[in-house]
C-alpha cells in the first residue's frame, strides 16, 4: 500500500500531462461565442461602392470566413469552401482581412469564389473587433445575430460534415 501511493501520484501526473500535450494551444476559446456579432459596415470586394454588414443578415444563419491572399492555410481551406458553397442555402460571407483588394480579387478569380458576398477589412479593424488572431477563422452566426461557434484555422471537410452543417441545421430550426 505504501508503495502504491507514489505510483498513483505518478499515474495521475501522466494523465494530466498527456491531456495537456494533446491540447492545441492555438485554440483559445473565444469570449465572443454566445455574444452578439460585432457590427460593421464594409465595402464589398466586388462592388466597392456598396456597403455590407451583419445587420443585412438579420434573421438568417450565416458564416463569416476570415481570409487573406497572403495566408497559406487559407489556400488549403479554399477548395473545401468551394465544395461547401455548392450547397445553395449556405450564406458564406468572406472577410478579406488585411489584404490588398486587388490581390483578393485575383485570388478569387484564380481559385474560385465560394462567397455569397465578400467584404474588405483593409486595416484589420473589424478583424480586431471579432477577436481574429490567426487566419483563417470561421464564425457561425444565428438568426438573432449571436455568434454560436468559432473555428480557428482551416476548416476541413470533416468539420463541415460533423460540426458546422449539423449546427447550421439546428440553428435554422430556432425561431428568430
Amino acid at each position, binding site marked *: 500500500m505504501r508503495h502504491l501511493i507514489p505510483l498513483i501520484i505518478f499515474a495521475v501526473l501522466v494523465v494530466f500531462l498527456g491531456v495537456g500535450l494533446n491540447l492545441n494551444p492555438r485554440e483559445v476559446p473565444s469570449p465572443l461565442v454566445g455574444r452578439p456579432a460585432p457590427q460593421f459596415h464594409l465595402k464589398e470586394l466586388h462592388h466597392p461602392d456598396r456597403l455590407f454588414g451583419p445587420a443585412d443578415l438579420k434573421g438568417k444563419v450565416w458564416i463569416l470566413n476570415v481570409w487573406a491572399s497572403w495566408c497559406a492555410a487559407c489556400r488549403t481551406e479554399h477548395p473545401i469552401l468551394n465544395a461547401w458553397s455548392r450547397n445553395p442555402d449556405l450564406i458564406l460571407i468572406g472577410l478579406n482581412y488585411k489584404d490588398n483588394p486587388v490581390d483578393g480579387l485575383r485570388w478569387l478569380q484564380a481559385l474560385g469564389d465560394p462567397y455569397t458576398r465578400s467584404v474588405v477589412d483593409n486595416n484589420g479593424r473589424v478583424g*480586431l*473587433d471579432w*477577436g481574429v488572431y490567426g487566419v483563417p477563422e470561421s464564425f457561425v452566426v444565428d438568426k438573432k445575430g449571436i455568434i454560436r461557434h468559432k473555428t480557428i484555422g482551416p476548416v476541413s471537410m470533416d468539420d463541415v460534415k460533423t460540426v458546422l452543417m449539423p449546427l447550421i441545421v439546428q440553428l435554422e430550426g430556432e425561431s428568430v
Partner: protein
Amino acid sequence: MRITIAVVMMLACVMNVSAKVEMLSFTVPENEARYKKLTAELRCMVCQNQNIASSNADLAKDLRQQVYTHIKKGQSDEEIIAFMVARYGEFVLYRPRLNARTALLWLGPFVLLVGGMFLMIRLMRRTRDGDAPISEGSMNRARDLLKKNSKTP
C-alpha cells in the same frame, strides 16, 4: 579588423530592430508609463509566449496602436483591459484575474504548499515517535551479530 566587423554587424542588428519600433509621442509622461505597463501585460495571441510590447507580429502592432489611441482618448487601464478581454478572452492577460475559473490557478500553489507542509510535519512526528521498545529476541540477535563481528578481525 575582425572585431571591428563584428561590432559593425552587431550595431546594424540593433539599428534594424529600433527601426521597426513605431514612433509614439506622449505629452504626459505618466501615460507613457501606462502604455509600457499595459503592452507588457498583454499577450500576443499570434506568438503566445511574448507580450505585445516585444512582439513584431502584425497583430501585436495593431494592438499596441489600440492601446496608444485608447490612452490618448483618456480611457482608464481597466477600460483598455476590458476592451482586449472582450475580444480575445482572459488569455490575453499575463496575470489572469481572480475568479471562479482561475481560482485553482491562483490558489493551487498555496494549497499544495500548505498540504505539503502538513504532510511533512506529520511524517517527521511519526519518525520521532518511532523510538519504540525493541523486543528481547531482536536485542539478543543483535548482540550475537556484534559478537561474531568482533571475533573476526
